[in-house]
């Protein structure tokens, strides 16, 4: 095997290893598993076509997430509307076939995540679930580190409020006063 083949098989191997995380991120952006996998498919093709521009040994995961994210937002701009489950079909399907979409005990949390503004959900997932640093997340989202930190912080605040409303009483007397702020999401 010559040097070029080594590079390509290493690229393919790393791409394959990154796919589970990429799928999870796509699903958090899109909500519908079928469209999410479409997005991942396009990302794989774009990444492969741009192999030469990728420097092996640098952060492939961040590179792939950036491609996927940019593709997602350019799709949204073309359509001029929210792509996230516009017809509620994801939520509907979930009610009928919950085991396809994940365990029910996390359903409250998943619902709360969906209610977050897109930029906050994206930030908290990149930092809290995908394993990126604040700096890496800022690069992926093409914004300042402070912006990411503030989005993550607001996402946490909002998630706490949303979850406490759903589990009213479980967290003690304070849950009731928070419930009075129903519907007020920190933007």
């Amino acid at each position, binding site marked *: *095997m*010559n040097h*070029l*083949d080594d590079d*390509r098989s290493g690229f*393919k191997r790393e*791409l*394959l290893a990154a*796919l*589970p*995380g990429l*799928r*999870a991120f796509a*699903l*958090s952006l899109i909500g519908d598993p079928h469209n999410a*996998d479409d997005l*991942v*498919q396009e990302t*794989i*093709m774009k990444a*492969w076509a741009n192999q030469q521009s990728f420097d092996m040994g640098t952060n492939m995961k961040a590179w792939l997430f950036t491609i996927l994210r940019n593709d997602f937002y350019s799709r949204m701009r073309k359509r001029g509307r929210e792509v996230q489950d516009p017809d509620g079909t994801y939520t509907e399907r979930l009610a009928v076939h919950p085991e396809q979409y*994940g*365990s029910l005990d*996390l359903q409250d*949390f*998943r619902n709360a*995540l969906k209610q977050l503004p897109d930029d906050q959900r994206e930030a*908290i*997932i990149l930092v*809290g*679930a*995908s394993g990126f640093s604040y700096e890496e997340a800022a690069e992926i989202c093409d914004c300042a580190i402070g912006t990411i930190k503030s989005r993550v912080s607001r996402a*946490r605040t909002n*998630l*706490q409020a949303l*979850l406490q409303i759903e589990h009213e009483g479980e*967290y*003690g007397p304070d849950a009731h006063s928070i419930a009075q702020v129903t519907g007020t999401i920190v933007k």
Partner: protein
Amino acid sequence: MMDPDGDIARKLRAVYREVESQEIPQQFLDLLEKLDAAEKSQKGGGNG
């Protein structure tokens, strides 16, 4: 008293891990093989 940040962080990772632990759909594996094969044949097939 439960730490709300800890609880949220835990659930976030759990939700995410559920998708990550699914098997990679065959369509992606097939796509990668196709891309790889197409490139190999363009470059003359290498060592065989």
